[in-house]
């Protein structure tokens, strides 16, 4: 069984976007309107950081959230109610971005029939190994002017 989420079943709304928007408005921004679809050509990330959770069981898949270090630090400051220029440690960044991936992934898992269990989040500067043909879906987002990409992958 594959990790297919039936995007068309949501009557014109993108469930991945809807979930991401809920996560950012409820837990990061405290208000709606700061996360939107990326306009223009697909963004090229520099100084990348990736956070992901896997679904293991009858359905095997990965929810991967990719962004840039400065954006990840800004997300961390927002989640932890830190000052705008307060230094962000690597452990806090990994924990915060991992939790964002966990919440997005957990809610996406609920859209899959008989999905199995969610793994604990992982965070890395290196993109986890994936095979291009296993890409199910990609959504490029704009959070406060900077790119953030959510991708769904089938796992063997």
């Amino acid at each position, binding site marked *: 069984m594959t990790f297919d989420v039936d995007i068309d079943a949501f009557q014109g709304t993108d469930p991945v976007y809807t979930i991401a928007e809920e*996560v950012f408005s*409820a837990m990061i921004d405290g208000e709606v309107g700061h996360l939107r679809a990326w306009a223009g050509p697909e963004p090229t990330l520099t100084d990348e950081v990736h956070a992901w959770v896997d679904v293991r069981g009858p359905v095997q898949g990965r929810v991967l959230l990719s962004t840039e270090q400065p954006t990840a630090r800004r997300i961390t400051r927002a989640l*932890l109610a830190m000052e705008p220029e307060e230094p962000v440690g690597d452990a806090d960044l990994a924990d915060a971005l991992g939790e964002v991936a*966990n919440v997005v992934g957990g*809610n996406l898992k609920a859209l899959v029939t008989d999905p199995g269990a*969610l793994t604990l989040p992982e965070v890395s500067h290196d993109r986890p190994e994936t095979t291009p043909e296993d890409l199910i879906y990609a959504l490029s987002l704009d959070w406060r002017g900077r790119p953030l990409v959510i991708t769904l992958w089938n796992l063997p």
Partner: protein
Amino acid sequence: MRALVIDDSRTMRRIIAGILRPLGFDTVEAADGQEALDALEDGLDVELACIDWNMPNLDGLGFVTAVRKDGRWRDVTLMMITTESEQGQIVRALAAGAHEYVIKPFTPDAIRDKLQLLGLVGLQESA
């Protein structure tokens, strides 16, 4: 009142504790279900436990099951706060003895509303 916040994410523990403290709770944190269970065994007295589901060592469902099996902790209110949002998982948690269930992402208002339903927060704190 004292609340035990159980989540393997330090970020999430800080967020939840930050919501609870203005509502009148002293908070104690644990990074997984086993650490929380050990704290209770050591005599930690709490009125509320906020419990994540997916954690290393002992997960949230295991913690709820263990607490409900032991009469010493029958008065502890158990509130799951988790990304596990399938109906089947909610039923499992409630059947195991959780009193309430909050799905991440949540707002501070959602936590306050649940605590008010549970009678742990009065109207004046939730206003």
